[in-house]
Every structure is written in structure tokens, then in C-alpha cells.
């Protein structure tokens, strides 16, 4: 069986399992909604002169990063519970296939949550402001950011899988490693939503940084995965 067939089989299993249990999507979705509630409480106390639009990129990405950590912790937890990961490791497949399929499923679940929470964020917090005509361009930073988060997060959640205090350790490793990507995505997201003069230069430069980060980190994760999962 070739690489793509193995990848398809692994991905299909993750999607079927999640479709049945809804463990990751429901926990990530509920957590994201709770963060929105906290945002609501925090922003209701600010002065009326506050430009929420300028902060929207940062708020959206804080929501995405923390929500994704919850999902990444869960993504391998269920594989460990019944020894299923060992079942996969006993199959005659390349370990990097496991990485790619898991990163893809994590990315898809994150995108589903974003599909619900980002419009909700706009509905609750951006109702009274005028978005720039360029706001649909938010799709690209969301996509590049989610790919990077899923790729790096899949590697790190594998590294922390057998450690004590893995939830804390994942956060400690995840946030600093993700900083360049989050920085670029916040800049691109804010840029396209505010649409100030000359925003396109910043937007494209940020996307380039995010894309470069994705390529480098995904390649590294792919190359290191066999060593990490066999350790």
C-alpha cells in the first residue's frame, strides 16, 4: 500500500472517530465560546473610544491559539487510552505518514472551530464598526496559521505525550515556538480588517512570513517525527 493510501486510511479513521465521538470539536468549540464570553466581560468595561477593530486580529489569534492547545492535547490522548497508537506503530508504514495524517485532521478540526467562532466574534464585537472591504482576505492568514499550528502542535503533542504535566509542557513549548507565526497572522488579520492605506504591503509580507514558517516547520516536523515517536 502506497503513502497516499496509508495517509487516506489514517485520516479517514480520525475523521470517522471524531464524527462519532465529537470529543475534540465539542471541547474546542465550548472552550472558544467561553473565551468569547470572557472577551465580552473584559471589553464591556472599556471606554467607548476604544478602537476594537485595531485589536481584533490579536483577540482572534489569542482565541485560536488557546483553543488549539486544548484540541492538540486531546488529539493524542484518545490514541493512548486503549493503546491504539501502538496498534498504528505496529503497522508497516512510514512514521511520517502518521504525522501528516494527524496534522491534517488537527488542522481540519481547528478550521471547523474557526468557521464558527470567527463569525461569532465579528457578530458580538464588530457589529458597530465598519469593516474594510478587504476583510474577506482574512481567509488566508487563518488558513496559513491553522496549518502551522496543526503541524507544530502535532509534533509537540507527540513529544509531550509520555511526559508528566504534559498539558503545561505543551503550552510552554508551543507558545514560544509559535510566536513568529502568530505575530505574522495577527498583522495580516488586523491589516485586512482595518484596511488602512498601504495595508497590502504589510499583509503580503506577513503572509510570506507565515507561509515560510509553515514550510520550514512542517518540513522539520516531518523529518523529526520518526525519531520523536520512536523515542
Amino acid at each position: 500500500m502506497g503513502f497516499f493510501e496509508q495517509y487516506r486510511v489514517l485520516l479517514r479513521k480520525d475523521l470517522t472517530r471524531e464524527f462519532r465521538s465529537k470529543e475534540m470539536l465539542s471541547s474546542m468549540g465550548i472552550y472558544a465560546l467561553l473565551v468569547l464570553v470572557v472577551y465580552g466581560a473584559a471589553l464591556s468595561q472599556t471606554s467607548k473610544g476604544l478602537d476594537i477593530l485595531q485589536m481584533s486580529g490579536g483577540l482572534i489569534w489569542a482565541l485560536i491559539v488557546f483553543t488549539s492547545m486544548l484540541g492538540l492535547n486531546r488529539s493524542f490522548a484518545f490514541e493512548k487510552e486503549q493503546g491504539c497508537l501502538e496498534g498504528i506503530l505496529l503497522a508497516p508504514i512510514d512514521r511520517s505518514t502518521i504525522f501528516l495524517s494527524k496534522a491534517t485532521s488537527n488542522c481540519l478540526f481547528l478550521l471547523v472551530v474557526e468557521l464558527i467562532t470567527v463569525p461569532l466574534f465579528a457578530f458580538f464585537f464588530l457589529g458597530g464598526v465598519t469593516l474594510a472591504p478587504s476583510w474577506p482576505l482574512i481567509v488566508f492568514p487563518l488558513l496559513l496559521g491553522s496549518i502551522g499550528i496543526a503541524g507544530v502542535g502535532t509534533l509537540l503533542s507527540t513529544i509531550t505525550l509520555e511526559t508528566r504535566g504534559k498539558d503545561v509542557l505543551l503550552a510552554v513549548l508551543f507558545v514560544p515556538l509559535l510566536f513568529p507565526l502568530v505575530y505574522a497572522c495577527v498583522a495580516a488579520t488586523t491589516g485586512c480588517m482595518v484596511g488602512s492605506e498601504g495595508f497590502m504591503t504589510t499583509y503580503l509580507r506577513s503572509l510570506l512570513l507565515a507561509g515560510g514558517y509553515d514550510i520550514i516547520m512542517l518540513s522539520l516536523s516531518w523529518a523529526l517525527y520518526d525519531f520523536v515517536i520512536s523515542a
Partner: protein
Amino acid sequence: MTDAIVAKGLRKAFGSRVAVDDLSFTLPKGRFLVVFGPNGAGKTTLLRMLSTLSRPSAGSANILGLDLIEDAQELRRHIGFISHAPMLYPALSASENLLFFARLQGVPNPQARVKDLLDAVELSHRSLDPVSTFSRGMLQRCSIARALLGDPELLLLDEPYSGLDLRAADIFDQLLSDHRADRSIVMVSHDLQHGYDLADQLLLMSRGKLLLSADKDDLPFDEFQHRFRAGAGMAVG
């Protein structure tokens, strides 16, 4: 090549704790080796190394003509492993679980193979139910079917009878006797009498070390039992 396993100086250490130390043995093809030993003897660690799940800290092993480390990916095609965990996804049905692992193993005509194995372990009537609804014994039977999916030449069994009721144990005995002729088996067991009855070869471990390796024909049960108790006593003492 007439040996299924040739292990030389296998060692596994977790930090400063040595789980398996300088273990060497040979298992000819088609033979049934039963590994005995008290808790913490290193039996499970040995099976995990032989299954390629855990990399030895030192030593080497040639399994079915393949190197344990260099040819690990190819070797996995020829090994079936039953461990303490069922290695089954609770949210998926028995049939979906087995089909998933069969496809990963590259089993030809996976649907037919899964159907045959579910029949063999008498789970056909529950094939569409999520395995989260299965009893411990049913999970173990499904796990046995999973291990046999690729028709492996080498079966590694870590206390496979644990959790099985009498009927399920009979089914497993029948499966073992049906498949025994054309494959090599390594089984970890705590049941001295049952393990001894099944074995062609005996291996006794304690504190990660090999205490005894013998052909069953050369070691009557009483003497084996005596040697086991002496070894277990040493581990406790």
C-alpha cells in the same frame, strides 16, 4: 534460515533502571516459546522490543531473517502482537477497527479477511457495534482478531488469556492450535501449568536477566516449577 528469532545481548534501560539485561536466546521457526517470570522481570519489555515498539538500548536481534532495528518497517508486516491494551478505538465498531488495521497492514481483500476473523472469534453478531460496548473478554477476542489480520509468521502474546472467560479461552486455544503449525509464537504467561502445556521452549526471567532457557522435553514440569519458585523467590528477596 531456520530460526525465527536470534537475540544476542538484548538490553533495555529506562534511565538508570535496567528492565532487560544481556538477554540472548534462539527460537527455531514453528516453535512455541513461553516466557515466565515474576512481576517486573522484564517479560513485557522483551516482547515490546521484539515487536519493534521499543528500541533496544544495546544488543541485536534477527527476526525471521530481518534485523530488528534496520529492517523494522518490513518486519512489522510479519508480526502480530497482543498486548495488555486491546489497541482498538472505542468509538469505532469491531468491523471498522479491524478494517482500519487490515488496510494499514496492507492485507489483500481486507473485507473478507475481517469477516473470516470475526467469525473465528465468534464476534460476527456484534461486528457493527462500537467496541466501547464490549466486555473485557470480547475486547480481547477482537484484539486477537486484530493481531491475526496480516496472517503473521511470528505471534507475540502478552498474557493473552487475561480477561478471557472459559468460552473465550477455548476459542483462543482453538485459534492457536489451528495456526500453530505454520508460525512461531512467543507468549508471556503467569499460568505455569497452562503455559508449560502449550510450550515447546521455556524461558524464565527475573529482574531483567535470563535465569533459564530450555526445551520442554528436557525439563519436567515439577522441576520447572521448582526452578520458577527459586527464581521468583530471588526476585522478591
